[in-house]
């Protein structure tokens, strides 16, 4: 039951974020508790709206039943930032998230899809080197005061509570949509950095 209820969280956040983005695009930059409540209620209505006997959220789950915790956290952070101007995940945490997910996916997907003999996905079913690696990474990030550590802790908590349909730790840590978001996020980060460097060089020339 908990897994079923949690499956509505990502679609709900997505619907609410899309509504907020649409409002922002139309020139209405609505912020605060009132708009948040309104977007939330409409978002809940959308994801619960039955189409052909299935709530809309479950149609999304039909395509991907395991939206990872980092992806959910990034979406939640973006939504909170848009509605309340509170950055739960700062640039450093987001950059860590992009690098983490791209590295994890580069290891996981080609191997799990059969391009190599090893299958790292098998390490996610129960205690293994993957858990030790995740723990070590979390500790290092906590020591560096990187907020992405909290996301990894949340992923571990979700795994222990079996909040996703999957019982494999990999699915709590990374998913194909997060990889796409990370590519875009990292691309934007690199572009921002490059623009910043160009501007700095321009200032020095002047």
């Amino acid at each position, binding site marked *: 039951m908990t897994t*079923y209820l949690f499956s509505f969280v990502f679609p709900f956040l997505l619907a609410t974020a899309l509504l907020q983005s649409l409002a922002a695009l139309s020139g209405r930059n609505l912020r605060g508790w009132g708009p948040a409540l309104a977007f939330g209620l409409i978002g809940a209505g959308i994801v619960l709206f039955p189409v*052909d*006997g*299935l709530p809309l959220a*479950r*149609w999304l*789950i*039909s*395509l*991907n*039943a*395991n939206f990872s915790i980092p992806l959910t956290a990034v979406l939640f952070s973006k939504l909170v930032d848009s509605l309340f101007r509170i950055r739960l995940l700062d640039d450093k945490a987001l950059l860590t998230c992009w690098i983490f997910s791209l590295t994890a996916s580069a290891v*996981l*997907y080609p191997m*799990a*899809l*059969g*391009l190599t*003999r090893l*299958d790292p*996905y*098998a390490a996610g*079913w*129960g*205690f293994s080197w993957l*858990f030790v690696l*995740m*723990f070590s990474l*979390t*500790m290092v990030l*906590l020591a560096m005061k990187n907020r992405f550590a909290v996301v990894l*802790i949340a992923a*571990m*908590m979700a*795994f*222990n509570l079996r909040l*996703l*349909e*999957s*019982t*494999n*730790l*990999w*699915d709590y840590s*990374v*998913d*194909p949509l997060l990889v796409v978001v990370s590519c875009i996020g990292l691309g934007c980060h690199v572009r921002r950095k490059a623009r910043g460097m160009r501007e700095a060089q321009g200032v020095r020339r002047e």
Partner: protein
Amino acid sequence: MATIGLYAWPAYQWVSTDNRDSGTFVADPVQASITPDVPLIHKEFISPDTGNGIVHVASICELSQGRLAAAWYGGTREGARDVSIFFSAKGPGDAASWSRPAKVVDRMSASKELCRYIKKVGNPVLFSGPGGRLWLVYVTIAVGGWSGSSLNVTWSDDSGNTWSKSRRLTLSPFFNVSELVRNRPLPLSSNGFAVPIYHECLEYFPEILWIQTGLTDPDIHFKKSRMTGGKSFMQPSVVALGPSEAIAFYRSRSHEKTIGAAVTTDAGATWSEPEALSLPNPDAGLDAILLSDQRILLAFNDSPVNRETLSLAVSHDRGVHWTRIAILESATGREFSYPYMIRTRDGRIHLVYTWDRKRIKHVIFNEAWIEAQIKGTMP
């Protein structure tokens, strides 16, 4: 401290439960002594003629008191949206006939039970477990063809009259697709099963789905491990030779068009490199079981190019050499495929297979018949 606790919890579970050990293979519970000496073979159809439709991928298992149950899929064509999984039971006794096929799963019921969109259903595998529970692992597809397959499980505690709500098994990190089932599971000493499965997406390779069940706990625990099969072997038929020893026979997608085989000596944890056997394989399913004297019986399509001939062969040296003992079916332009065998407690061998995609055929024979065939075919 809380963080350490969070990460320590899976380690504690790993140490405190038997999950880390899948168990060893359980030997076939056959009682060879009651096998009659008189050669016996009997052929019958399980499913009625489909007319313009198709039936495919049959599996059979033994219920309590000598009854049998079978499952397969059928519809207007392979991969059609109207494909359903059918169930039929028989017995006890030779005179009994197969019950009228009952629909167990279709795309609408699967969609309702799994709470998601299901475009079509596919391969089912039926097997019985501890406590008389009947298990059905089956394929569903939400998007695309067979490479979009996911596996689901449902069970029945009343010999197939009613079934539990289906449960989705997450077995792949990439949208949980490209996992299929076809072959007979092996019982494990830990009350679980080793279910041979296979992956077909970018590459084709065989895997094992390890299912752990409790006698009273309805919850199931599962994990998956890869078998060595290169990129051209799939649909493993696994024969347990001992608690830790087993041999797997593979359907081949290679240019060599021969059956592949690999062995394990550590209860499926690792597998040897697949070796090509001398028997052909036209990229079609096959099945093997162990006879009471440790010989291996194989049902296969005896051609590198088509599924027109279904034969039986026996090996006394773990698959190195084979003796063809019988041609069960042979007709030009027809298909006799996807054999699936079990040996029941009375020592009889039950073989089910797709008969020209029109019907599911059931052939019963005993080891005395196999001996008679060997004597008749050997020089």
